[in-house]
């Protein structure tokens, strides 16, 4: 059994140790924000945060994660109350097909948690592992800048919201509260 806290809820998971975190999130917990892209850690669409750091969930086996804390894009806010990163991406309309965007947002969130004053160069360098074939790159950059600004001015909302919506209650996983 692996104990994993996802978006502030703790789960005891009975899965094979080599199961990628991505599969656990999508198949066991019903969190479909993180996307399956290449499965090789080369495209970034599966990115989530583990203990505040951006990681590729498709190449991260659950065996490494016992006791750790995972935040997915669902943990950044809700439809009613989007977090700063989500609000900025909505405002800039930074998604076209949107497949890469959850990963981009989680990488950017991890960057800004670590460095709220990240420069344009820092943001570009951080997002370098993420591929987007639609081409909203400039909007994505603007959105991250805007999210940084919002986070700096409303420090209260920096912390990932306690916000996995109740409607996506995980199937096949036991809750032990949050």
């Amino acid at each position, binding site marked *: 059994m692996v104990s994993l806290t996802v978006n502030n809820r703790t789960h005891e998971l009975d899965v094979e140790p080599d199961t990628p975190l991505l599969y656990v999130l999508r198949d066991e917990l019903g969190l479909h924000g993180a996307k399956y892209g290449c499965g090789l850690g*080369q495209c970034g669409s599966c990115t989530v945060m583990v203990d505040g750091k951006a990681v590729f969930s498709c190449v991260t086996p659950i065996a490494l994660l016992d006791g750790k804390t995972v935040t997915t894009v669902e943990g950044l806010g809700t439809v009613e109350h989007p977090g700063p990163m989500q609000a900025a991406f909505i405002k800039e309309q930074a998604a076209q097909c949107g497949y890469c965007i959850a990963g981009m947002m989680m990488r950017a969130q991890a960057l800004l948690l670590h460095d709220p004053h990240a420069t344009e160069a820092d943001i570009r360098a951080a997002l370098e592992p993420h591929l987007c074939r639609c081409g909203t790159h400039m909007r994505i950059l603007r959105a991250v800048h805007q999210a940084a600004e919002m986070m700096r001015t409303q420090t209260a909302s920096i912390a990932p919201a306690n916000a996995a919506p109740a409607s996506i209650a995980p199937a096949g996983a036991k809750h032990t509260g949050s």
Partner: protein
Amino acid sequence: MASSKRVNSVLWAAATVAVIVLAAVIYAWRPTIAPITPPAPSSFDPALVQRGAALAALGDCNTCHTGSDGRTFAGGLPIPTPFGTIYSSNITPDPKAGIGRWSEAAFSRAMRDGIDREGRYLYPAFPYDHFTLVSDADNHALYAYLMTRQPVEKTAPPPELPFPLNIRMVMAGWNLLYLKTGPFKPDPNHDATWNRGAYLVEGLGHCGACHTPRNWLGAERRTDFFGGGDAEGWHAFTINAASQSPIPWDEASLYSYLRTGFHGLHGVARGPMAPVVGNLGTVDDKDLHAMAIYVASVMGKPEAAREANAKKLAASVRTTGNGTIPQSGGIQSVTPAATDKAEGAAIYATTCATCHESGRPVPYGGIGLQLSSAIADSSPRNLINVILNGVPAADGTKGPMMPGFGDVMNDKQIDALVNYLRGHFGAKPAWSDVPNEIAAARAEIAHAQTISAPAPSTTGTNAPPKPGNAGKTQP
């Protein structure tokens, strides 16, 4: 009287010191070479410029002389040394910040003697102890190439060195001890190709700058030629007869590795070697062959036992043939069950094996780790660096890559994995200093992140620390 005697002896001592200093200054003094009006790029023969471009790639000039802002040859890259940080100089033809007012004689003197146009001593972070071997003809071509680049007005920050190293003239003493000026003398016992390789490897290629260990004064220990050294937080492998590579190198594998940046039985160039092979990938075939021949001859023929073992190892590696397209994770090979209960074995089986036992050849899959030079090496540092950082994708070209696991594995997990890999795949005695090396590698990454963003100005001072970064620690 006692006090006047003391005054006398103090005066004598002072005078002696003054005479010694004066003599040293007279010995070390180098004249300024008169500035020139920057020559028009059109005044250089294009064929010569092209030859210079190939030589500059061979010398890996752009790697050190390009800062994080990406302006090629404009310098400003911080180069950490055991003595302090030195910033690479601007070698674009900018008349103020670069070498625009340098004559060819001034350029050649810098290459041969490590003295700049104004007669100031350069620090041997610029490997003039190698470049001194470069021929006049090659300096002529290099000069033509550099003087026809785009000028960039950007002044490098001054070196951050403690007294007395901050006095450049002190390097006259270092040169007296360690600089053996050129030109290159061919060895009559070897043929022209071998000598061409020696000239390129020892001279412009300056391979020994990383691959030969250095003494306490930062000079290469020639008695341990190619014995392995330290470079920017990586261990430059031993590339002489004592090479730890599980499969012995030969001329053909060296050539292929230097040309493509990887080899199916050796793995991938990474760390500071990655830009080197990026440059070498463009150089003339004959020259690259010559370099491979020379380095292979330094390594010599492996002992029979090592060769037999290598044959067994190579046969144990199963690949599905060259040109196999990288498949997505969904149809990766089935993860092998952990062979033992150890934490490191479990981490290997769940995390590493899907690529490293995928059967896909390098660069589409990871090499079988029984072939890994990093696991066989005397130092665990390169293995730790690769686990933490992965192998970043090369810019603009196909190549091997690996995601890093530093943000998801804690130090205990990395320690367990490193020890397992060493014992299981390296079949060598455990490294003794793994936890310290993990901490050092993590510190290096954190440090690289703080200096990776380009400085906002070109005033020659360090950028102030960004607010909010103070006191950040690695978890």
